[in-house]
């Protein structure tokens, strides 16, 4: 493998999608607000879709909708339809998981009265301490 300008130009789209994906990952890992985490997850997901679609792209190609139905379509270049089909399914599944995640956030906010991960962890630890103390008292008595 030799690294020349052609190689870099041909791989730049992939790298840009990876950088976009990493920014989504960074939001998911570093931000405590749960709604922001879902937004980050969406960015992550969409950039993976872009990567898949870019694999199916052919230079000078057009959308895989047949122009001339009677003849064999060897004269026209069509991009690969298979990644498109896969990603169509993935988008719909993605919105389903997003909806479920948002419903969970609403439920969490009802229980904890906050959507910040730090506060939730603090409250969990306090509860755990209380529970442990109660257990120790009960076993002693």
């Amino acid at each position: 493998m030799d690294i020349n300008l052609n190689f870099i130009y041909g791989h730049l789209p992939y790298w840009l999608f990876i950088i976009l994906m990493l920014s989504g990952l960074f939001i998911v890992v570093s931000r405590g607000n749960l709604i922001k985490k879902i937004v980050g997850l969406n960015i992550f997901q969409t950039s993976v879709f872009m990567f898949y679609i870019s694999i199916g792209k052919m230079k000078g190609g057009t959308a895989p909708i047949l122009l001339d139905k009677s003849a064999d379509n060897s004269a026209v270049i069509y991009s690969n339809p298979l990644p498109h089909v896969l990603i169509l399914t993935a988008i719909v599944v993605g919105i389903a998981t997003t909806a479920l995640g948002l419903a969970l956030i609403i439920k969490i906010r009802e229980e904890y009265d906050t959507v910040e991960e730090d506060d939730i962890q603090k409250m969990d630890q306090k509860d755990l301490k209380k529970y442990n103390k109660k257990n120790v008292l009960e076993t002693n008595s």
Partner: protein
Amino acid sequence: MALTLKHLFAVIMLSGAFSLVSAMLFVAMDAVDVAFTEAAVGAGVSTVLMLATMALTVRVQKETKRTILFPLVVVCLVGVLLIYGTLDMPNFGAFDSPAQLHLGSTYLSITYKDMGIPNVVTGILASYRGYDTLGETVVVLTAGLGVILLLSGLKGRKDKE
């Protein structure tokens, strides 16, 4: 932008705009079906769902004292590994890539004969991969049931209080 903004409304609106721009990118990469699904679902439905969640929860993010060092290390590590993985890939838009050489052209030539639908993506989605699409609707149904079950307890509890 989504990193520093404190107002969740702005964050959600920006995420909708991002979805719309990505739909344009899908058109540029010849995936028109994906583009209008992304515009309808990503920019439309998901923005509405997030706004509804924001209305039911909080509007402003709290200040946090989290360290960004560990996330930064994780992200850089993943990035280096992924970019190393792309080095073996064919160039963007290449004709001789493995993805183009095998099934794609076969489907392009047989779909119209089998189904009579000029849109190959629709033909594959509804016929060759019909069971997969059925499974997808099961996933959506399950998610919808989950959302209903999670949210059905909300009002009752508020009434009790």
